């Protein structure tokens, strides 16, 4: 108590300070001020950006409450043992770290019906929120899902909820392509890939039932190597996911693929899922240049053979290895009409394109119409890397990882490299 008291005093002093600052401003207190350089980002005309906070943590996914509180999931608890940071509004549209809880690292975080859901790499927890969006039980969350596989590869458990009381959890395959020897040159695929029993798909659980394990969950969709970005599309009433495509075609089968093909072919794909869907991993990969599902070389493919088997076709495809780590359907009204109900996708950036230049480190916009991708995607926010050279070298300053929509329609982006939190706003008057 004697530790929290001075903190409280400090905090109230800070709040009082910012209030008086606000009082001096002639503009509305909610005024959001873009940084002079738009936080170093390249944006379409009419948009601006600001750094709202530097958390210094590995900021994975994040959410914003209706009152503008940010909850940010850290991949690893910070020095104070906080795996979830709470940031509260400050002046100019910025936020300040005002606490934290949840002594576990992880990726997933989601808001639904008065609860905050968050995941470790094995479990999903939920916290009750009060009317102000404050967590009421920070040290005693309910454990909703438990005992999911974590083998230190594709370990993150991203989460999202639908509008019917269900929770969806990605369980990534702990493998590149289900070889007998993972990532080893020439090693062939395991017949009837056993990994798919407990991973390599999306599992569905009840959102309100404690301690569900594999036995209580349903394998909602399979054949998905690893999904980090996923979102529920309320227009189509459907789950959409971004798969991380396979790596190392050349390393493993140098006689079938050269380094350039290895870097360019296996696209990152957007899938529209329905219950029971099978996207085909590890038996197939999607060749983004031919726009075809191809048989994986571990399972008899040779770079030319099209996939055999009836697998889900992607809804859209993006450059290979660029690592889509967040998907967000934009429902706000701040941005111009064309963005409404479209998808933003945060690409964390590649590593498996070497010796070709690396790519990604940007946020893409994918237009949608009536719940389906419609028209070409475009890079929306670029230059998280700092310079094109840093991007090409795979040595970016920042790596976009999470996306969230603010109550006013701002788009928040988290960076899990330095822990920077960005806010992108539309600054131009709409005509």
């Amino acid at each position, binding site marked *: 108590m004697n530790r929290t008291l001075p903190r409280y005093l400090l905090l109230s002093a800070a709040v009082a300070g910012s209030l008086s600052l606000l009082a001096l401003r002639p503009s509305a207190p909610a005024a959001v001020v873009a940084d002079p350089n738009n936080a170093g980002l390249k944006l379409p005309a009419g948009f601006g950006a600001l750094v709202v906070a530097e958390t210094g943590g590995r900021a994975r996914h994040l959410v914003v409450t209706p009152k503008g509180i940010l909850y940010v999931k850290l991949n690893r608890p910070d020095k104070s043992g906080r795996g979830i940071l709470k940031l509260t509004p400050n002046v100019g549209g910025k936020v300040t770290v005002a606490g934290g809880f949840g002594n576990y690292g992880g990726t997933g975080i989601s808001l639904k019906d008065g609860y905050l859901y968050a995941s470790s790499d094995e479990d999903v927890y939920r916290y009750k929120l009060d009317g102000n969006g404050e967590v009421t039980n920070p040290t005693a969350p309910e454990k909703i899902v438990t005992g999911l596989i974590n083998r*230190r*590869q594709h370990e993150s458990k991203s989460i999202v909820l639908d509008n019917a009381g269900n929770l969806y959890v990605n369980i990534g395959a702990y493998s590149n392509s289900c070889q007998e020897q*993972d990532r*080893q040159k020439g090693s062939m695929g395991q017949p009837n890939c056993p990994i798919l029993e407990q991973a390599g798909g999306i599992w569905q659980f009840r959102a309100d039932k404690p301690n569900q394990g594999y036995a209580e969950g349903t394998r909602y969709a399979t054949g998905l190597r690893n999904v980090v970005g996923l979102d529920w599309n309320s227009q189509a009433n459907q789950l959409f996911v971004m798969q991380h495509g396979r790596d190392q075609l*050349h390393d493993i089968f140098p006689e079938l693929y050269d380094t350039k093909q290895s870097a360019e072919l296996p696209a990152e794909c957007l899938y529209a899922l329905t219950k029971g869907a099978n996207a085909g991993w590890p038996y197939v990969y999607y060749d983004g240049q031919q726009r075809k599902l191809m048989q994986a070389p571990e399972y008899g493919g040779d770079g030319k053979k099209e996939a055999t088997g009836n697998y889900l076709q992607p809804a859209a495809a993006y450059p290979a290895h660029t690592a889509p780590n967040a998907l967000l359907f934009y429902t706000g009204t701040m941005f111009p009409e064309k963005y409404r109900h479209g998808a933003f996708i945060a690409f964390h950036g590649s*590593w498996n394109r070497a*010796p070709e230049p690396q790519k990604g480190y940007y946020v893409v916009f994918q237009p949608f119409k009536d719940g389906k991708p419609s028209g070409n995607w475009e890079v929306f926010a670029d230059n998280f890397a700092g310079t094109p050279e840093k991007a090409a070298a*795979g*040595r970016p300053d920042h790596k976009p990882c999470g996306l969230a929509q603010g109550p006013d329609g701002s788009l928040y982006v988290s960076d899990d490299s330095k822990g920077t939190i960005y806010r992108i706003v539309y600054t131009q008057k709409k005509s």
Partner: protein
Amino acid sequence: MKRFFVLLAAVTLLHGAAVAQQKKPVAKKPAGKPATAMPAARLAAGKTVYTQNCLTCHMADGGGVEGMNPPLSKTTWVLGDKTRLVGVVLNGLQDQDIDGEPYRNVMPAQNQLTDQQIADVLTYVRNSFGNKASAVTPAEVKAARAANKK
């Protein structure tokens, strides 16, 4: 007589060249340690093996990939016990923290590489990316491979 002078000049020249050649590496080495020159040909051969088998994960600059593939600069694995280091290439590595950091990927076994190739690539790694350490010889790899089989 003329011949003698030519010979003398040649000897002097040669001697001078030899001294000059010796001077460089000696000057670089810390006093007390025998100078083990790293032949450029071995480093070049090692770089070729690295480019074909290691670069995709550990990157051209040896800096690795944050949280996924560890760097190869000044780690206790690269600079430490050579048998353990050879073992990483022969057996691969998984679920090991590297100098306190976890990495979320696997290193595949690369035991298809010859003793010479492993010696070359590890010599290259131990003398690149800011590292400066003794060479790994094919004999050392051979011994490690034999011990590894048991």
